[in-house]
């Protein structure tokens, strides 16, 4: 009698629906309008990204978002050549962590450039059709 060695299964539902919370929702609405904002904590007098309804530095409540200059600085980047399974990507993709002057935190996003470098100034390339997601910014380009 040969043992049955494997049993296939999927752990899935159709879809998760995530909400962004009161502050995050306002932030996403800003993106939809093509505006980049950061959360503002009045106690710490700090702006931070990504926004949350609490301040990660003093744990107090955060309600306000303030527009920021949409020009960031590349703090680190990588050129992705292969996917998780080791297959070559059709097109190399540049992923970066982008900081904004005077703002704590930052954004992880794609860059469109052949010559990424740390310290490079970048600005968002907005999509025509926006729906209130971080991908309303298609990628960042050199500013």
């Amino acid at each position, binding site marked *: 009698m040969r043992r049955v060695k494997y*049993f296939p299964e999927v752990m899935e*539902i159709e879809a*998760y629906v995530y*909400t962004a919370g*009161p502050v995050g929702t306002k932030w996403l609405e800003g993106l939809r309008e093509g505006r980049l904002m950061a959360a503002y904590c009045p106690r710490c007098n700090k702006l931070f990204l990504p926004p949350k*309804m*609490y301040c990660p530095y*003093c*744990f107090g409540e955060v309600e306000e978002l303030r527009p920021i200059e949409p020009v960031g600085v590349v703090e680190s980047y990588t050129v992705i050549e292969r996917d998780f399974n080791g297959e070559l990507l059709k097109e190399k993709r540049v992923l970066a962590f982008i900081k904004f002057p005077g703002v704590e935190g930052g954004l992880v996003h794609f860059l469109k450039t052949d010559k990424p470098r740390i310290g490079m100034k970048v600005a968002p390339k907005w999509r025509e059709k926006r729906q209130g997601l971080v991908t309303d910014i298609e990628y960042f380009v050199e500013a």
Partner: protein
Amino acid sequence: MTSRNLNFKHRVAVVGAGLTLFRRRLQETPQELAWLAAKQALEEAGLTLKDIDCVVIGSAPDAFDGVHMKGEYLAEGAGGIGKPVVRVFVGGATGVFVPIAAWWHVASGLCKRVLAVAEEKMSHAAKPHPQYVFRYIWDPIVEKPLNPNLLWIFAMEMHRYMYKCGVKKEDIALVSVKNKRNACGHPSAQLCDPNIKVEDVLNSEVLVWPVQRLDVSPVSDGAAAVVLASEEEARRITDTPVWIKGIGWTLDTTHWTNRDLAFPEYVRRAAEMAYRMAGIDNPRKQIDVAEPYDPFDYKELHHMEGLGLARKCEAPILTREGVTQRDGDLPINPSGGLLGVGNPIAAAGLMKVAEIFWQIRGEAGARQVKKPVYTGLAQAWGDLMQAGTVVVMGI
């Protein structure tokens, strides 16, 4: 564990508790729900996050919130920023396990003030329905291919209990009625119904006989938090600390199709452990108020018997006689329980601990039980009907 040294280094107290609303859908992110509860607990204790040494998180399956490594994700909202954070997990029993784990954080002397937070956001698993997620709790090889619904196992346990004890659905429905009415005094409650009657439960949609819709607690989003402190710290923080007197938990075998479901032996063992530590030998007399886990109405009865608050098959009788009402001799689930306040899984368990805390401090307002409260108990249950967690608290 009879030979154990029960003179612990540090007595442990609860000094603050906080809750969010419990609702079918909340807009806040899981991190933000955890923050809302944590913030309220800290404020009640008069502390800030700086005062907290360690954080303990409790949350049930990652598959609800839809975040893998949910403990890592929640840490920030739960106050785990540059701090030791651990997430403990015993399925549905997690909520009451959170203060158990927090207890040894303090009792070991390694942490002085601990923030314990439980969160669940079931609404994320929106399509097709959060209940679908429960499909993945079954044995993936010998059970899941039968395409089960979670309610099956509970219906099987309920039916076995009814069969062995000769309990009628009418008697079980009384629990649902009591808890949904009790919930009207709870500011977080999702399902308060001051006018609900036994007939409403008996006429509600039949899901998996003998379980009908009003026999079951709802799908909920929510969070809860408590602050624990060592004796020295607790005395500094408040004049009315509530002591954790006993902790206990047990996991029965995974193979639930191999054992009798009529009596929750695992709850009995868990309770024995907690009672031994708390010096309780007659729980029916020594426990003034209890919050046994009630995701289903029969479960309250089942757990009362497991906890030794009623003899086997006696809980339905006590319920019928009104003993378990808020003004009764043994108030059970004065908060409104999961059936009334809602069931964001881990958060619901910790809500019960918060309720006992407030009952002992006399701060439950409209929900305050009539008899004086010196000692209370919270209990939760989970996994494949195999986990029991118990905390005994007192002044």
